[in-house]
């Protein structure tokens, strides 16, 4: 059983970009992905990082209680590879992601926001 050390950083949607800009060190940190969790009413979004050659550690920048239609900033200026995960998430949760290009995974005939709770639970 693994017990990774989770280092949670307190951020808000407004300051996440500035905080990441200051914190992210390309020599030290490794961007993993962006993740969203739908609780049924609001979204929680995590920006997840790890460090090179450090055991069992993860950095998580979590923003909770996000409204569905909020504008989510893109991190492409901080790390240019962010687009894949951001576009993916924008598709899956029907997010208002900055610069996101829709339809990377979903065809027009598919349901929108398939990972939103309302699209699969109870119906």
């Amino acid at each position, binding site marked *: *059983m*693994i*017990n*990774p050390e*989770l280092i949670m950083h307190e951020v808000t949607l407004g300051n996440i970009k500035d905080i990441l800009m200051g914190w992210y060190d*390309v*020599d030290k940190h*490794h*961007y*993993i*992905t962006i*993740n969203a*969790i*739908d609780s049924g009413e609001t979204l929680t979004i*995590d920006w*997840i990082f*790890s*460090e*090179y*050659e*450090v*055991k*069992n*550690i*993860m950095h*998580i920048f979590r923003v909770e209680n996000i409204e569905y239609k909020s504008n989510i900033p893109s991190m492409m200026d901080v*790390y*240019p*590879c962010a*687009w*894949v*995960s951001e576009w*993916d998430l924008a598709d*899956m949760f029907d997010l208002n992601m900055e610069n996101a290009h829709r*339809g*990377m*995974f*979903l065809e027009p005939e598919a349901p929108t926001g*398939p*990972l939103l709770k309302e*699209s*699969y*639970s109870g119906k």
Partner: protein
Amino acid sequence: MGSKITVTFGSQHIAIPEPVSFVFETENEIITKVDVDVGYVHRGIEQAAVSKFNFNNVQFLLARVCGFCSITHAGAYIHGVEQLLGVETTRRADYLRLIVTELDRMHSHLLANGHVAEVCGYENLFMQVVKYRENATEILEAITGNRVQYDYYQIGGVSRDLSPEHIKMINAKLVELRKNVLKMRDFFETDYTLGLKTRNVGTITYDMAKEYNTAGPIARASGLRMDARNEFDFLPYGEVGYVLQTRTEGDVWARNMVRFDEVINSIDMSLYAVNNLPEGDIKVKVKGKPKGETFIRVEAPRGECFYYIKGNGTKVMERVRVRVPTYSNIPVLRELFVGSLYSDAQPIVLSFDPCLSCTAR
């Protein structure tokens, strides 16, 4: 000048077995622009994992995310669920998991390298690699009962145990495989025409690898020391002689070499693990329903595989997030094409060993 030719590469193309589409704009075969579409294999597995399957069946679904790294997908999920349930597996189960994971890595890496040779027009080398790769798949078949989709991991342990005959067979085959892989590595390292196609082709510099957050053999071929096996203790890699393999060239050739080095290392680890298998049960009893959240990183053949799992105490998981290695390698892949020859595009793509069914899920 009128020299623009738009070349579609995929979705159905002989060089890539998976549906993925690159649209190259070329001038005199030099690529000037590229569009990538990676979404062909999107099936909606993340949704299915939290709606259609019970938590103790999800690993069978997740194994079908990708056939190459089925073991790591199922493994990552099970590691997470075990953590949520507070299950401590036996050391024997850990060792068995490690053996199968590494065998999976071997066959995946060998096929990837063989495929690079194939798209370079070196059919014979592909055939030889496939021939030697059979050693690994035969072992897998003997241990797990299937050649590709093993479903070996189970919550709390593994599905089958190794018998002494198995161990003997594994030893013999792995020793033979090691010999052949060394031969193959030598071949890939020194062959002239293959070198023309692979050396200094699609070079990712160290800085680029860092900037684009590459993962797996692609990152390690550029000298980036990152490996989830090194950074995350999901299996007892420290005990079996794991060594981080890197190269500094960052080209197609270096990626092949890193894969071969890793195969050798995997063989060594598997040999050690097989011969020093701890006694004990292969499975422990599991009770309860997963509750809480966890973050799991495991090393798939193509690089770091990340899972976020959240349970809410019911039979169905609350959220399963899959981030696969190819996912993080696609941005840099797109950058590499511009300026390179169309005839080098296939080796570049295949040297990434892209797994689109992972990416799109």
